[in-house]
């Protein structure tokens, strides 16, 4: 199936949010049976490794020359494989990020029973990502992206904040200093893994997720072992028992998380980490019906109906939607077809083109043109000032043609 690339990105990010929202509901139910958040988290990780491995195997089955995974979930998936040498560093960092994030979440639950009071602040991770991208990525966030990120972040906080309960400074410190940095590590390095080439082809989200959950499980087990050693508890063993005792519920969570992450990783491969995270903040909207259902069946306390709270929530949701729409409607893409003068080295010219900010693909081609480059910019003015002027300064370029993309479809 071929759909428009813009829609593909939002389809993936929203699908990931919807699945994550449903899973959070099951999480809340399971929390009633497994009280220790540390045991709950580790048992989900253990099951995550098992489920991810099982589904990666199933998705590897070949059907008419293509794996089931490539036909249904990720077109770049060729089959389950061992971790590659060039992936190890990034997998260790993103796995550590996942483990830090999870442990931070456990610590938060230990301090405060109702994480909804402080968890909305974890959406500030979007701003962390904008700052990191400004420092590290060649595609620096534009003013529109920074504005939209701030709108989505504050919208997410307003949309999910609870007016009941007290704010704990300790809990806030965990969100800002542990959970958010964990998310940053996870997002940035999963994105780096997704855009990495493996044997000349695009890396697939299924193997990335499989190895990430394995590394994160190892890190978390290690932390729990240290916790057991320091506190004299037996949580590591309890986690294994809980995995078997609540097999069905935990398997359902691990299954959902597996697919939620695959869609998230694929979205990361298309958009920047900050933009993907901003769209994924829509989980706050999708979790509202889940909360209503849980409340209706008595799994959680009745929903608070203070008119002030409802007004604040509505304002937050409107802000979020505006921010996401602003991301969606302000992206301009173009192809630039380039002919070069003879007597200049192709590789050197390719590198000069690649160094221009906003250029996200450079292809040396055989045909009428020598290079076809793909541009992504938020405004045409920036496209001219930042890109075309720079192209004109490259001595090897003979002539070029800028052709704006009006509409685009991509194979999913």
């Amino acid at each position, binding site marked *: 199936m071929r759909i428009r690339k813009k829609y593909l990105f939002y389809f993936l990010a929203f699908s990931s949010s919807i699945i994550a929202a449903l899973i959070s509901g099951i999480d809340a139910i399971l929390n009633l049976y497994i009280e220790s958040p540390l045991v709950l988290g580790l048992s989900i990780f253990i099951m995550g490794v098992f489920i991810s491995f099982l589904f990666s195997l199933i998705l590897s089955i070949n059907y008419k020359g293509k794996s089931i995974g490539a036909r249904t979930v990720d077109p770049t998936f060729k089959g389950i494989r061992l971790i590659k040498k060039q992936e190890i560093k990034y997998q260790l960092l993103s796995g550590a990020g996942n483990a830090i994030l999870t442990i931070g979440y456990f610590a938060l639950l230990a301090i405060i029973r109702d994480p909804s009071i402080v968890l909305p602040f974890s959406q500030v991770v979007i701003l962390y990502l904008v700052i990191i991208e400004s420092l590290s990525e060649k595609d620096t966030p534009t003013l529109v992206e920074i504005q939209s990120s701030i709108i989505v972040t504050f919208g997410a906080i307003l949309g999910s904040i609870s007016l009941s309960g007290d704010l704990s400074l300790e809990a806030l410190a965990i969100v800002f200093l542990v959970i958010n940095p964990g998310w940053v590590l996870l997002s940035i390095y999963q994105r780096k893994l997704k855009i990495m080439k493996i044997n000349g082809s695009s890396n697939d989200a299924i193997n990335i997720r499989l190895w990430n959950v394995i590394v994160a499980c190892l890190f978390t087990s290690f932390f729990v072992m240290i916790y057991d050693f320091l506190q004299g508890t037996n949580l590591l063993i309890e986690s294994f028992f809980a995995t078997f005792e609540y097999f069905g519920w935990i398997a359902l969570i691990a299954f959902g998380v597996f697919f939620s992450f695959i869609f998230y990783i694929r979205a990361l491969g298309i958009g920047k980490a900050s933009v993907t995270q901003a769209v994924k903040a829509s989980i706050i909207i999708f979790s509202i019906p889940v909360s209503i259902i849980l409340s209706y069946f008595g799994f959680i306390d009745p929903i608070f109906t203070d008119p002030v709270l409802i007004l604040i929530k509505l304002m937050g949701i409107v802000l979020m939607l505006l921010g996401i729409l602003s991301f969606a409607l302000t992206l301009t893409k173009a192809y630039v077809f380039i002919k070069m003068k003879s007597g200049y080295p192709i590789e050197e010219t390719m590198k000069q083109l690649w160094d221009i900010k906003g250029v996200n693909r*450079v292809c040396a081609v055989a045909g009428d043109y020598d290079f076809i480059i793909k541009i992504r910019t938020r405004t045409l003015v920036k496209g001219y000032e930042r890109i075309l002027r720079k192209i004109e300064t490259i001595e090897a370029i003979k002539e070029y043609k800028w052709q*704006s993309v009006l509409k685009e479809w*991509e194979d999913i």
Partner: protein
Amino acid sequence: MINAYILVHVRTGSTDRAIEEMRKIENIRKISIIAGDFDVVIRVEVKSLDKLLKVTNKIQLIKGVLKTTTHVIEKEIVL
């Protein structure tokens, strides 16, 4: 794997119908409608040059397609 861009000229007024037909062809990874000298840019991923020829043929047989120019990618840097 061989990757290529196929630049397509389409007869005025035939773009929508031609795109519909192109979306049915296998091995096409991306279709972009562009403003300028060309009307459509197609990104193709095939296993052999023989397959590339078959895809190009299928595109040329679409009603409204006037001309195609194929550019095989020799080297690529991508974000």
